[in-house]
Structure formats: structure tokens, C-alpha cells
């Protein structure tokens, strides 16, 4: 079991014939993901890798394949359009990998989706994976994961792989790993994912990787303090980042005291999360947490 996706997930890749789209579509398929269609305007009627039908529009693709999930790789100027097209076609889980989406496009598309039963993950995220279900919808290297009962949620990509690597290294498998994305505005927050992990019978504990910028980790801390029933270990990256400078991620910039690593770490600690002191200690900290639990 897992959250968000499983072996029954029927996925479309938007931008499947592009460079990144084709590379990662193949990797997802190889991992076991049920990719049922691709969409690239102008390529309708073709077969991707001689097996996956490509459509011109999401409407057609959903009608023909009954897909429920979409993975987006289109270039940034077209990402909001792609998200809106997926939503309009009846997709209920949209994962937008694309980086560099203009923030006002994200503002509008989030408002467009407001109040509708559609979940957007990202943009600018690595996607998600449920190893036990052999379902990967993202750009993470599948082979570092192993099935298990740890939930992982993170704002970053490679740092998540690091975390997963350390978990797998100590023999701790994962139920689902979700990269929520590094932009200022994203569709799914830590709290959203924590709620799902809280309710997932196959997730026993959670590793949460936050970073500087915004106050999403404080919201998570509030939720953890009030509602979260499982052990949770947390790392906040960027303790050494200077204020006012954007650390790669559009959202990773310290704009005030509350956006700092220290403030976030403090909030999580007070909420009862186990703090991972440095990025080198993810595995050890989890092991210690599990030993105590």
C-alpha cells in the first residue's frame, strides 16, 4: 500500500516526445509504472517506443485510456496550460515536474483548481514513488528505493534521494516518497502529505525534509503537534544559507526570521518531531527513533 499512487494508477505523460519527457517516461515504465498514454500536440496517432499511444489532446487521451494521473514535462511557458488541460480532461492527480513556471501562472492555475477534487503536486518537483507498488511518477532514480513502511516527504529532489539512500542503506524501505517541489507556491503542502501518511495503514513513520524559505514547515509543525500520530524525523536544509539569496529553488530564500532553518527546526522540535542534526545523520537518526518507538 501507499499514498497517492499504486499499481492501479493509469498515467499519462504530457510532453512524452520531448527530451526529458521521453527519458523519464521510459524510466517510469521500466520501473513498472502503468503509463497508458502520452500527449504531445501534433504527434497524435504515433506510438511512443512502439507501445504507448500518443494523443494530440488530453481529452482524447483520457477518453481512450481512462487515465487518472498525469505527469507533466512540458517547458515552463506551457506548464500552466498543461495543468489546466489535465484538470479539464478529468485527471485527479497531476504531477508537474517542470521547473521555472512563472509564479503568476502558478497563482492562476492554483486558483483555477481551488475547490475541485484535483490534486496538483509541484510544480518544480521530482514527483513521487511507491516502491512496493512498483509505481514511479517522477525523475528519481528508482533503484535506490526499496519497499517498506517509511513515508518520505521533501521539498527537494537530490536531497530526497540522499535521504532515501540512507534509509535503504540501513535496511529501511519506503511506502511512498513524495517530492512536493521547490517553488514558492506549490499545489501540495507538507501538511497535505502528512495527512495522507497519517491515514495510510502501511506507513509506520515519516521522514520529512524541509528547507529554508516560507513557513510551510511551521504549518507542518502545527499539524504534527496537533494531529500526527506516528514517529517523524525531520531535517531542514540551508542552515548555512545567507538571508536574501535564492538557493537554487525559487522558494528557498530567507526573507525573515521565520524562514530560517533554525526557526523551522525549533518549531518542529517543539511539535515533537525528532530532529536530524545534519544531512549526514538521516539514517542514524531514523534508526535511533525506531529503536525507541
Amino acid at each position, binding site marked *: 500500500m501507499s499514498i497517492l499512487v499504486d499499481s492501479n494508477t493509469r498515467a499519462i505523460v504530457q510532453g512524452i516526445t520531448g*527530451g*526529458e519527457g521521453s*527519458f523519464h517516461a521510459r524510466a517510469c515504465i521500466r520501473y513498472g509504472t502503468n503509463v497508458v498514454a502520452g500527449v504531445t500536440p501534433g504527434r497524435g496517432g504515433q506510438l511512443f517506443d512502439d507501445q504507448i499511444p500518443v494523443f494530440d489532446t488530453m481529452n482524447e487521451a483520457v477518453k481512450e485510456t481512462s487515465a487518472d494521473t498525469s505527469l507533466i514535462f512540458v517547458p*515552463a*511557458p506551457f506548464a500552466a496550460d498543461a495543468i489546466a488541460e489535465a484538470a479539464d480532461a478529468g485527471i485527479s492527480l497531476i504531477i508537474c515536474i517542470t521547473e521555472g*513556471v*512563472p*509564479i*503568476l*501562472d502558478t*497563482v*492562476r492555475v*492554483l*486558483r483555477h483548481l481551488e475547490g475541485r477534487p484535483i490534486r496538483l503536486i509541484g510544480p518544480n518537483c521530482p514527483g513521487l514513488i511507491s516502491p512496493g507498488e512498483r509505481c514511479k511518477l517522477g*525523475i*528519481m*532514480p528508482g533503484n*535506490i528505493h526499496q519497499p517498506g513502511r517509511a513515508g518520505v516527504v*521533501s*521539498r*527537494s*529532489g*537530490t*536531497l*530526497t*534521494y*540522499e535521504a532515501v*539512500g*540512507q534509509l535503504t*542503506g540501513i535496511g529501511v524501505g519506503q511506502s511512498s516518497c513524495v517530492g512536493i517541489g*521547490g517553488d*514558492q*507556491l506549490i499545489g501540495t503542502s507538507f501538511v497535505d502529505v502528512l495527512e495522507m501518511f497519517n491515514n495510510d495503514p502501511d506507513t509506520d513513520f515519516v521522514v520529512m*525534509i524541509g*528547507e*529554508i524559505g516560507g*513557513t510551510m514547515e511551521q504549518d507542518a509543525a502545527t499539524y504534527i503537534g496537533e494531529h500526527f500520530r506516528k514517529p517523524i524525523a525531520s*531535517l531542514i*536544509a*540551508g*542552515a*548555512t*544559507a*545567507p538571508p*536574501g*539569496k*535564492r*538557493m*537554487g*529553488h*525559487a*522558494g*528557498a530564500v530567507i*526573507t*525573515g*526570521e521565520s524562514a530560517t*532553518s533554525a526557526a523551522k527546526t525549533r518549531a518542529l522540535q517543539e511539535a515533537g518531531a525528532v530532529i536530524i542534526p*545534519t*544531512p*549526514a545523520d538521516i539514517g542514524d537518526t531514523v534508526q535511533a527513533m525506531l529503536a525507541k518507538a
Partner: protein
Amino acid sequence: MKLHEYQSKEMFSRYGIPVPRGIAASTREEAIEAAQNLDGPWVVKAQVHAGGRGKAGGIKVVSTHDEVGNAAEALLGSRLVTHQTGPEGAPVHKVLVEEATKVSHELYVALMIDRGFRGPVVIASASGGMDIEEVAATTPERILKEGIDPVLGLQPFQGRRLAYGLGLPQELIRPASQIALSLYDIFIDNDCSLLEINPLAIDEAGKLVALDAKVDLEDDAMFRHHDLLPLRDREQEDELEAQALENNIAYVKLDGYVGCLVNGAGLAMATMDVIQNAGARPANFLDVGGGASEDKVALAVSIMLSDPEVTQVLVNVFGGILRCDIAAGGIVKAWRDSNSQLPMLVRMRGTNVDEGKDILRGSGLDVTFADTLTEVSAALSASLR
């Protein structure tokens, strides 16, 4: 992308926001000519992409044409050091000569994206001229905020509510509201990431006027604003950071000495943290990105190596989209091109890790390997002794 004050004020002016009469000048002569076309006394303001100019001596009030010339001459060609620039300062290539405003009160107004609200908000405060972060920290009740529904845009009632909230006299309610509405139009039309007027002054005649103006444009949206590209002043930007940005590499210079090359922003921050925890100091943040080619990695490394403070290098690559062998190839290329002798601590994992390590091992460079971040930390600590 940041605009200069004089560029921001030109934009404000086009949208009907009142600004003092002023003219930008690049030479002493131009500054004097500007003053001749304006009423004195004048303010001569250094045009740099940094706040804190006043305390740093970048803003001078003068009352004769000759003093305008002297002030301009003193500033032009200098580097202005403010609390936002770092010790190297920012180069002054233009000054803004403005008619001085007699101020009776200073307000603050800004427009930005608010994460919690998930959209744009207007922020305003009756405590203008101060550091707004400080106002927010010490007297948060003095900060007014209006969240904007993108369906409607900023509504006049919100402008009025802000104006009344600031305690403005009745005759300024409509003008103040109109300034907020104009800021919103600027924000949307130009894809801004920040608009700020600090201070928004009430002058002696009781009129509102934007004494300072800050416009930051969103880099991610510049593809649809080619008309605004000429407003860029590259000389205000850190050269290495600008070069990196143009090549889609995220690089931020820091004040340490361990150069680091990482793929992924989160891992890059984490790597900086590991360096610090080991007792060393990172020289930079550097995310070479996901889909990097050998050439791009080489460029990233050369940018990192251009920093003369760097005395050792840490490479931390988690191969995924970026394959380890590609990363290794780029590193070796850059080392050879720059003739660098610096030692390198390398931690590689993921796709094609063995091929990557082989390339580095065979390169003849001074490479030490670590398998885990714990080993990285230990190796860094050891190197300090």
C-alpha cells in the same frame, strides 16, 4: 531581474503613480544639466541595486548646480558599500537627480507574492522609511495586508481599506487607493516578483509621492517580456552569479573557502550544512542542475574555481538525471582548462557511479573519495588539522 530606481520611477510614472521630477545622469555635466531643468534644491541618488544607500552616503541633498555636479562626480565611478552589497560594494554608473521633496510623513507600500495566501498581496504600513522586516517583527499590528483574488484583481475597496487603515486624511484616500491599484497593474502587466515604495511620502503640500521605487521582475517570466530586457544592468550583478544564471546554473558566492559542486538545490544546501558542521566554511552554493551536460558541468566548475578564496573542493553528486560519468568528465575538463592544482573531495552515488569514479581516478588530479556524507564530514574535519 532588478530595476534601478530611475527605471522603476519611469515605470511608476507611466502607470500614474506620482514620483518627484527627476532625470538620470551618467556624468557630472549631465547631472548639472538635469538640475538646470529641475527646481532646486536637489537630491542626487546613486543608482545601485541595493538598499541602504542613504546611510552609506549614496544619497545627497544639495542646493546649487555646482553641488549637484560635485555630488554626482563623487558618486559616479565609485563603488557604494551598503549593508546589502557586501564589502566589495556596487558600482555607481548613474545618478538620479531629483527635485527634493519636503516630507511631512512617510508610509510604506509593497506588492509581492504571499505563500500563505497563495497569491499576490499588498502590504502597507504607516511606518514608512523604516526597515519593514523590523516593523513586522516589532510592531506587526502596524502592517496592513490585502490578499488579492486573481479573478478580480486588487479591488478599489481594498485600496480604500488600506488607505483608511493607514489613517490617511479623507482627501488622500482615493489617491492612495489608486497607487495600490496602479501597483497591481504594474505587477501583473510586467510579471513582477516585488514592488516596493519605501517611503511613500506625504509632502508638505499634502500630496502623495513615491520617494523611492523598487521593481523586481521575475526571471522565470522574462521570456514574455523581451521589451524589458534592455533595462537589465549587468554591472550591478555579481559577475560569476550572472554568468551562472545565464547558463541555468544556480550559483551564490559565500564567504568561505570550500568550493562545492552539487546537483540539486536541496542537496547543495545540505552539502553546505555538512561543510559547516565539519568546522569548515563553504565558498559557494552551486547547483549544476539535473539535465547537465559535460560542458555545463565544466562551466559550473570553472565558475566555482574562479573564486580566488577557494582552497579546496567538495563534489557531491547523486547521479540520477545527471550521470556520474558526465559529471566526472566535466570536472576533469574544467580542472585541466584552468590548470587547477586544488585538491578535491568527491562523493558520488547513483547512475554510472563506477564509470565516474574511474574517470576521476584516471585523471591524475588530486582526488579523495568518500562514500557517505559522514565520511565527507570526517574528511573535511581531517583536512582542517
